[in-house]
Each structure stands twice: as C-alpha cells, then as structure tokens.
C-alpha cells in the first residue's frame, strides 16, 4: 500500500454501494415525511417539520459520504485514539444535564449549537476504527488473553457502562455483539469468546430484571396481546401496521398506525410504517437493498489485502448490519423493544450522516483494495 496506489484508484464511486444507499435514503426521506407529518403538524404546526430536517440531513450525509470516499482510510489508523477520546467525552457529556437532551426518559442526545448529536452513534464508529486498528496491530498476540483480549473488552466496558447510564440498552447490546464478532474475525481464541458469553449471561439477566421498564418490555415482547395498552402496545401496533399493509400495502401516506397509534413512527418504527404503506413487496425490496449493501461490505472486506482495511470494512458492515437486523426484528416482534434506528431510513441526523460516512469509508476501501 502506498500513495501511488491510492491515487490510481480514486476515480469512481462503488456503484454497488452507491445505488442501494441512495435508493434507501430516497425512500427514507419520503417515508419520514409520511410517517411524521401528522405528528409534526400536531407538535410543531407544520407537517414538513421532520421532512425538511431529514432532507438537510440527507444532503449533509451525501457531502460527508463524498468526503469520506476521498479520505484515505488508513488515516483512521492515526485517528483511532483521538476518535475514541472524542466519543468518550461525548458519552460523558450527554450524562451531564446541562448538555444532554432527554427524550422519553433517556438522555441520548448532546446539544451542540443548533444541532443535537447522538454520541452512541459516534461511539460505535469510533469503536470499529479502534478495534480494526488494534486487532491489526496486535496480530498474533490476540490469542493472549491479557494483551489481545482484555484491552478491547475494557474499552467496551467503559463505553457500555456510559451508554447504559443514558439508558440505552439496545446500543450496549449492539456494541457488545459488534466487539465480539470483530474479535472473532480478528482471531481471538474461541475459548475466550465462548467464556465471555457464559460470563455475560447472568449479568444480562440481572440487568433485564433490575430495571422495571426492561422487564416490562420483555413481558410485552413475550406476550404482547396480554398487555395491549401498556407493555405490548408498541409491538401490537407495529404488527397491526404490517398486517394491514398485506402484500401490496395501503399506499404511501395512507397508513393509519402512524396516526399516534405507533410511537416514534418516523424513527424506531419506520419499518412498520413502510410495512403498512408499501406492503410486503416494499419490505422485501428494503431487505434486498440491505442485503446488497451488507454483501458488498463483506466482499470489500474479503478482497482487501490490507488487514486494517479489511477489518474496518467488516466492522462497519457488522455495525450497520446489526442495527438493521435488530431494528427489523423489533418491528416484527422478534426482539423486545429497543430504541434503535434503521440505517438510512429512520429520521435522525447523527444516524444518517454517520451511516453515510461508513459507506464513504467502505467506498474508499473498495477503490484501494486491489492494490
């Protein structure tokens, strides 16, 4: 890998990423409008409130994608610790009431000027970059528990406990799974990995039982129809949205569940709104587009000779893939409710911009991989 080779491949954009991503972002803007207009009208007096912001985020996302596409990805090796530190600062800041913005009983947003930022999203990317860097650097030392395994888990625990304080259990699970999978790819001992799961299981159970809302969510998940007006409410209405949509969907803008039945129709439950308005056809197309992006991400990782590039590519793909799968599973009642967004589709600036950044990075890796 050298400078000459970078330059040789900075020409085009990876169409196999660009097409599905832009397609999803396009659908996202339309569906955010459809899902949020009633809510926006009631809360802000304009049905375009979320649409306008999401459109701005999309443009910002495209700009960021272009920038990341052209930034040599090996730059992130040097940036891994600063980024980690930045994410840490943000995660601490969000817990301080003066900076944090609460919504629905959780402080998940950080106010910076006119913007709000979701530090857990940044933390995820920072963690991926750090893990790719660290796993590449340590190489064969990964087999060693204290050198190869523990430091990564240590960083994870710091991040997790801060995010946990928000509280954002969903992001913790994603970060944990992400780290675990990256350690697995990087070459950590299977023994260590299995042992972690065995050790984490009772902690996880304790955490679920310790917070009443998590326990209720689990109950609501296991038997939503038993608790139709409280714990099972979200799942029931999400399922109703899918059921009403059927094969062909009610048509864009014609769904009913978004009309204050479904909470967060434009963020956490945008998949349900799509299910109702675009039907099974729309759902399968969306799943197909994600599959395409993920396959392309894996393919880029696989064909990149550079270990850092490969690990970075697979890490970004995993981070995105986990987010997609978990969000969809929640919407379809396969997992308990979590406050996770659906990449490219859900309303939210941080999520959209950082996911576009991930795609930009993947594109950069893609153009340099055959060096």
């Amino acid at each position, binding site marked *: 890998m050298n400078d000459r080779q970078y330059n040789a491949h900075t020409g085009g954009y990876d169409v196999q990423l660009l097409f599905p991503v832009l397609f999803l972002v396009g659908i996202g803007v339309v569906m955010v409008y459809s899902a949020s207009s009633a809510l926006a009208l009631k809360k802000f007096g304009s049905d375009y409130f979320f649409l306008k912001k999401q459109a701005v985020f999309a443009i910002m996302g495209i700009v960021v994608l272009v920038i990341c596409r052209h930034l040599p990805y090996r730059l992130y090796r040097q940036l891994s610790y600063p980024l980690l530190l930045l994410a840490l600062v943000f995660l601490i800041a969000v817990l301080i009431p003066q900076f944090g913005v609460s919504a629905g009983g959780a402080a998940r947003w950080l106010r910076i000027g006119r913007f709000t930022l979701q530090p857990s999203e940044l933390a995820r990317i920072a963690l991926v970059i750090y893990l790719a860097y660290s796993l590449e650097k340590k190489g064969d030392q990964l087999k060693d528990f204290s050198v190869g395994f523990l430091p990564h888990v240590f960083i994870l625990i710091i991040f997790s406990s801060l995010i946990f304080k928000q509280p954002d259990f969903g992001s913790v699970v994603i970060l944990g799974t992400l780290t675990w999978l990256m350690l697995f790819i990087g070459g950590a001992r299977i023994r260590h990995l299995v042992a972690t799961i065995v050790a984490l299981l009772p902690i996880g159970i304790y955490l679920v039982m310790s917070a009443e809302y998590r326990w209720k969510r689990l109950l609501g998940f296991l038997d939503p129809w038993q608790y139709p007006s409280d714990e099972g409410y979200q799942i029931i209405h999400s399922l109703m949205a899918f059921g009403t949509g059927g094969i062909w969907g009610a048509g864009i803008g014609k769904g009913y569940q978004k009309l204050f039945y479904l909470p967060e129709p434009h963020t956490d439950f945008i998949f349900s709104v799509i299910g109702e308005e675009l039907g099974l056809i729309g759902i399968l197309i969306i799943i197909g587009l994600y599959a395409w992006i993920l396959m392309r991400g*894996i393919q880029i990782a696989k064909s990149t000779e550079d270990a850092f590039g490969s690990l970075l590519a697979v890490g970004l793909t995993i981070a995105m893939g986990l987010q997609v799968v978990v969000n969809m599973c929640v919407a379809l009642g396969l997992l308990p409710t979590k406050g996770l967004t659906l990449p490219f589709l859900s309303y939210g600036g941080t999520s959209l911009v950082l996911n576009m950044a991930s795609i930009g990075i993947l594109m950069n890796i893609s153009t340099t991989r055959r060096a």
Partner: protein
Amino acid sequence: MEKKYINLREILIGIMFMLLLAFVGARAVQVQIYDGPWLSKKASNQYEKSFTNNGRRGTIYDRNFREMAVSIEVTSIAAYPMQITDANATAEALAKALKMKAKYVLQKLKTDKKFVWIKRQSTPKETAAVKDLQLDGIDFIPECNRFYPNTTLAAQALGFTGLDGEGLEGIEFFYNRYLKAEENNYTVFKDALGNGFKAEPDTVTLNRGNNLVLTIDSNIQFITEAALQEAVNRYSARSGISIVMQPKTGAILALAHYPFFNPNAHTDFDKELWRNRIITDPFEPGSTMKIFSAAAAIESGTTTPNTIFYCENGAYRIGKNVVHDINRHGWLSLQQIIKFSSNIGAVKVGEKIGPKRLYQTFRNFGFGEKTGIDSPGETTGSLSYYKQWSNIDTGAISFGHGISVSALQLICAVSAIANDGVLMKPYIVQAITDHLGKPLKTFKPQKVRKAISTQTAIRVKNMMKTVITKGGTGVNAALDGYSVSGKTGTSRKIDDNGTYSTKKHTASFVGFTPSENPEIAILVIIDEPQTEFYGGIVAAPIFKQIAQDTLNYLGIPPQRINNKLRVARDSETRG
C-alpha cells in the same frame, strides 16, 4: 493472523447476515400474509368507529303551520376510554367543565368499552368549554334534540321523544315512522388521539324526516287550555280535559289536559301526566248519555220529543235498587227529561225501547269501539252486550251509568248529532309533507257511518237546545249571539271500595254551536271538583268561555240579535 482466516470468518459473518435477513423476510411474510387479515381487522377495530346518525326528525306544525315540535342540532360529548392516558385528570377536567361529579365521569372512563357517552346533548357553552380543554380521547358527536317551542301546549297530544330520537308518546310515537329520518350509518376513522380523519362526522349529511301538519289550532288549543286551567284551579279539581272538534269533519282543533307537563323536560313530571287521557282513559259519562237514549227512542219511531213519561216523583224502584232524581218530577216529556236531566225519565225511556235498541244505537254512535284516531293507546271504553244486561243495567245505562266511554268517543257521538246523524272519524293529522314542504299524503274527513237519521238528529239537537234555556241544567253555557245545543253531566266516581263515592264527582258538559250550523263541538270534563260538582255549574261556564273565544277567533259572525234562541240567564239550574 493470516488474511485467509480473516476472509473465512468474514464470509461466515456475511452468511450469518444473509440468514438473519432471510429470517426477517420470512417473518414479514408470516405477519403480512398469514396473520395479515387478522391483524388488519384488529387494527381497523381501533381506528374505525361506526356511528348511526338518526338524522333530523321532521317538524310538527299546527294547522296554521306554527311549529309545535322541531329538531335542533346539538352536540353530544363522548369519550374513547382506551385513548385516555390519565383517566383521573381527564375525569376531573370534564367534571369541572360539565358540572358533573368527577367520580361519575371517572367510572365511565374506566370501562373496557371503546366508546362511552359523557354527556348527551350538551349545551353550546358546555361543548365549547370541553373543546377548550383539548383533551385526548374526547369526541363531539352531532345529534338532534327535540324541542317543543310552545312548552306545555298540547303536550299530551304531541307526546315526546327519547334521547335516541324515537317517539315515545302521543303523535311523536304514532307517526314515528314518518317523522323519523332515515338512519345514516357511517364509519369515522379516528387516530389514536380520537381525532377524526377521512370522513368527519359533520360532513355527513343529516337525513331528514317528514313533517306533520296537525288539525290542531294552537290558538284554540291555548284558549281551551287557559279556560281549563282556570276552572280546575277555581274548583280545586284534580284535573280536567277538554276537546274542541269540527263536527262536520272530525278534525280535532284542541286536545287539552290539565295539569300540564313540559315535554322538553318530561322526566321532571309525573308519568301519569304524559298520557293523552282524552283518548286512553275511559270514564263513566253520566247524564250526557241521556241524549243518546233519547236519540234511540226517537229513532225507534215510538217516541217523539213530546212523548210523556211518568217520573215517579223523584224515586223509582227497580228490583232492589232505587233510582233518584235531584228534583222531583211527575210527568215529563222526552224533551223535558233532557232539559231537566231526569234520571228516572231516562230509565223509563230505556224501558220503553228495550235494551237491544239502546245497545244498537249506542254502538251506532261509536261507543264500545275505537274511533280509530291517529294517536296511540286508544280505549274502547266498556259497553257490554245487551243480552247480558239486567233490568237495572238497562236503566242505569240509559242515564250513563254502568258504561264507560272515552272523552273522544263522547265528543264524536255528540258531533254526529250536530252533523245530521253522520258519525265522522276523528283525526289529528291532516297532512304529511316531505322536508321541503311538499305534501306526501293528506287526510280527508272520513265518514264512519250514519248513526241516526237526519230527522232524528235535528230533533235531538233541538232538545239539546232547551238544556241551555231557562230552567235547563245548562244555562251557564249560553252564548251571546250564538245558539247552543248541549248536555250537562254529573256522575259520582267509583271509590276504591267499588261503591259510588259521595264526594268524588266528574262534572261535564258537552255541546256544539251554533246549533243550526255547528262549527265547533266542545267537551269539558272536570275531575273531582271540590267546591261544586254539578256539570252545569262547573263545566258549562268553561264550555261557554272556550266557545265564545273560539267563535270569535274563527270569525264566525253572531246570529241575528232578535233570534229567539237568545236566552235569559237569570237562574242557575242543577242537573
């Protein structure tokens, strides 16, 4: 770590994601295709609310198109309890705005029902107050409220409707299917906050019912009610009823009951007051029946108004029973029997013509059968078959005891005498019009039968005139400028123990005017007057007042001043 191991594991991750996505896709197929119909139905149960709009009930007009009953649009306040998050706060806010008990409202909100009424037909002020609260899960449903602009006027005849707009009493009940608008079922789509989308309720067109035009004239009704109210109060009576009818057509001009009730708030009044007692309640008529006994006698051909009967000097024994007259009479002509209202004379008349003829004549006049008036709950009265009559029965029935009739039957029968013997079917609605006022159906006067010959009718009519002359029982009914044919009635009421009361009476007067060309027939019945009890004293003056005012209102010119039928009213006679 070799790159090929990394590659292998990356492929594994790729496979894992593909499997997960395939799983998600399979789940989507399951939810959207297999569970789809079930889920979709569940969903529509939540956002679809079906309503039945009763539409706008038709208006009831009097004969001059004055509004007697109208429907006005009002708002009812309802709630969707499922959509209310803080039932306590909502209940308290509603209770405050509607001046209801918070506990009562909370009880309504805490049901499992999807829809509950909070307040039906609220006032505009209440509606505005609740709207200002901007509560989630509260809805405003347009409805129609029945309103009777003349309050108590003709209330028993009109009846009233329930909250759902169904007629429950009177004409409202009898003509319900015409007045009622066609039901309009519509579905409203509601979001989780209870706000409507798609078809808003107020964009739904209200169907309209048909209108009724009554034969009742609200002015005559008012005249009648005012006279009745005054008399009932003057004699501290229990109640009173009065009818004004056109004898030639059977059209009813006034149907008055006192005490009044207000149909706008009927629940505030005793249920006993709601009934149209003129039609539904039978009573023992007493002396007013003597005119039909006389009619039967004349019609039989054996008797003329001048045929004389021996009146036994005031006491006449039939088996174990003794019939009394108030004034002792020796020989009286049939005309005098009517004029002085002799019971013994009437018994003698009955004995002369026999029960069969008496019965048949009474039946011809419509006693013992429904008149067929267009109002609910009509009584037939009771007139047993003549073969079951004993001698005393025949005697008693001859002077109006041992028989019961409705006030309506009585006025119809008297009207037949006024109408040359032709019995007309009474009616209260003369036309049904659609909401634009176009007539759908008109009701013409209907002849029931010829009860007696024209000649007999004229003879009876003239006998009835003498009742109002000096020495007759009905002099108090005499009018300035108009001739009157009439008959007084005083009957003792049957006590709770089944014997005739000495204290409780029914005082009545029935008659028509002008005698030669009757325009109006009037019946007045005062129930249990306290200070006086004779029909000639209690009821006859009411007849006079109603007749005078009505003739004046109708613009019927007085007869010539030198008319012989003008009477001196220098004495009051009882009977």
